[in-house]
């Protein structure tokens, strides 16, 4: 899969505009900078920080350090990555639609972040353990979590609808940053067990400001825990651009804690796959934590409750659309002849089927039993819960008796 990467110095990059800058103007001047970057794209060294294996145009570029991690990738695997991204996006769109129809209370779309999530998710091994935020639908997909399970909490029927240990995919975590410590602790446990599994913690650019994330850097470095911190810098924490969280690129945070940080083109699924594999393998080899900053873009609203028009313009989104992660791989598949029309058509049909399945599953999702309130507060029971459950039962029964209400 390195054949495409021979034309090494052609202008080919519109994607990496902000890499290597101080981050202090992130967001506001997106379009302009992209333009400027396109013009000067031949100067690869101008963006020393950004790892990219596929240009936005779908051209494979060489990378001495990371090529090895995707060297053996087959056309089938490439199509697999494409399929993952397409189906994830389809699922995501369906969920957004279901929210509009009132079937979900809320949805946090991953639109634009498919490459970051599928690339990193596919880099994990079955025995690895994943700690997501609330937006890692693509990673969940890679871990084999049935996407309909993700919808329970957004529909309001549960606060986490899967068994984390079935797929080594932890529950969604809403309190920003707290899962980074869980991942670190879990990784400490892996090391204690002498296992060669690795752990990956997802979080956002906003989350990077939380003390818990910093403490997870400290703990993982001190204990040399096999954990990868995968920060999807999607440029926004709700309405706040990344410059409100940091004045230097986030991947640089790691070095102050004594482990490597890398910025990868988060819209390049191959690069995300390669860099994450590299980081996970470091962890397995006992080399400790790594911070990966996937430089990407939240193309949609923060959640369905959000109105991004209040804080950002369309130009920025348009600029990022040109770097669309799915389009990029499609171009690559097409130009390299690794996929034909039949593949794309079949995938389209599969997408529709998925959409339909998700739609139906959500609509059929039963409301929880009222007594679920008391069910899982404790593992070993609690006298007060028992008392309250009994009172609740009596109270409920009183309506039945009265036949009223």
């Amino acid at each position, binding site marked *: 899969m390195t054949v495409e990467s021979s034309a090494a110095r052609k202008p080919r990059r519109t994607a990496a505009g902000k890499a290597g800058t101080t981050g202090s103007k992130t967001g506001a001047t997106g379009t302009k900078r992209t333009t400027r970057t396109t013009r000067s794209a031949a100067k690869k060294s101008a963006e020393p920080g950004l790892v990219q294996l596929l240009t936005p145009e779908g051209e494979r570029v060489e990378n001495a350090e990371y090529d090895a991690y995707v060297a053996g990738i087959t056309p089938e695997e490439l199509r697999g990555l494409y399929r993952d991204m397409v189906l994830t996006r389809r699922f995501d769109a369906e969920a957004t639609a279901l929210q509009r129809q009132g079937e979900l209370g*809320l949805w946090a779309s991953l639109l634009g972040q498919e490459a970051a999530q599928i690339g990193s998710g596919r880099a994990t091994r079955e025995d690895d353990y994943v700690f997501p935020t609330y937006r890692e639908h693509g990673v969940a997909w890679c871990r084999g979590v049935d996407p309909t399970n993700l919808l329970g909490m957004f529909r309001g029927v549960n606060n986490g609808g899967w068994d984390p240990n079935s797929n080594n995919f932890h529950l969604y975590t*809403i309190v*920003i*940053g707290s899962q980074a410590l869980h991942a670190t602790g879990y990784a400490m446990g892996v090391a204690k067990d002498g296992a060669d599994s690795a752990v990956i913690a997802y979080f956002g650019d906003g989350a990077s400001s939380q003390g818990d994330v910093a403490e997870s850097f400290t703990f993982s470095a001190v204990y040399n825990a096999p954990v990868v911190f995968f920060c999807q810098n999607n440029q926004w924490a*709700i309405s706040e651009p990344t410059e409100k969280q940091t004045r230097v690129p986030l991947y640089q945070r790691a070095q102050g804690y004594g482990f490597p940080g890398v910025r990868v083109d988060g819209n390049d699924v191959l690069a995300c796959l390669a860099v994450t594999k590299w980081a996970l393998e470091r962890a397995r080899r006992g080399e400790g934590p790594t911070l990966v900053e996937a430089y990407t873009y939240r193309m949609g609203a923060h959640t369905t409750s959000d109105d991004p028009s209040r804080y950002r313009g369309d130009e920025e989104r348009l600029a990022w659309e040109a770097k669309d992660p799915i389009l990029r791989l499609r171009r690559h598949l097409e130009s390299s002849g690794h996929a034909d029309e039949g593949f794309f058509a079949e995938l389209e049909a599969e997408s529709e089927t998925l959409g339909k399945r998700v739609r139906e599953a959500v609509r059929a999702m039963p409301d929880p039993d009222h007594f679920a309130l008391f069910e899982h507060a404790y593992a070993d029971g609690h006298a007060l819960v028992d008392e309250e459950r009994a009172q609740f039962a009596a109270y409920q029964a009183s309506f039945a008796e009265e036949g009223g209400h």
Partner: protein
Amino acid sequence: MAEKMAMAKAINESLRRALDTDPKVLVMGEDVGKLGGVFRVTDGLQKDFGESRVIDTPLAESGIVGTAIGLALRGYRPVVEIQFDGFVFPAYDQIVTQLAKMHARSLGKVKLPVVIRIPYGGGIGAVEHHSESPEALFAHVAGLKVVSPSNSSDAYWMMQQAIQSDDPVIYFEPKRRYWDKGEVDPEAIPAPLHKARVVREGTDLTLAAYGPMVKLCREVADAAAEEGKSLEVLDLRSVSPLDFDAVQASVEKTRRLVVVHEAPVFFGSGAEIAARITERCFYHLEAPVLRVGGYHAPYPPARLEEEYLPDLDRVLDAVDRSLAY
């Protein structure tokens, strides 16, 4: 001069007035600037007062409260927004060990006039951590004042008073009432911040509540009236200090008390009210003080919150139980 406005708007207007009249007042928090907050409570304030008065902060609640303390030490009066109730806990250490204690620690030399706004409570069908009522966790901590308005006028005036207070004030905003409209008269003379108010007179039983539950209690009183029961409804307004005198006065008249809040009953405000009022009114009470509130379980997913939250029937049930003594 009085105008009808939603509670969210009333708070917005109150913040605007404070920013306007006192150059030391700051508004800070996540997304409070350009976005105007996820509930639009700070809408337009950054546009009008600039980024140095209305500050979008990094995503770190301990940092927000900790720097607000520093700003207060420098003479500012920060009004901090915590985006949702469930996200106040990263700041809990700064609130409990620093904000609450610095006045005492300095023997009164240092005052920290910081207001912490927390949209709280359930009933809006939200995901986890967006519907909690943690007021008891602040009321137990000396050095803090804890208030919660139930209507637009109080929201407006209590915010004015909270900002003027030289003590830190935790200002709990009943988010499900944000869109309820009520009169606000910016020239009125407000009631004292920590005094309860009788919002409906009655003779048979007292319902005491604050924040989101006041409206419910009024509805309960209406329903009970139809059954010929006369309930007095007290809007406590302040959780710390609690206006025990007002509750006592009411209970001495009605001889029965039901306390209603969304927070879990166990170790909740109702416990403190029941304990103290029973002590004060031992010979007056015809029935034990009853409490209606959340169960001892994590706040449930949205499709269960109706069962979890006090509602008309549950409060009426408690009223009946009390009256049955």
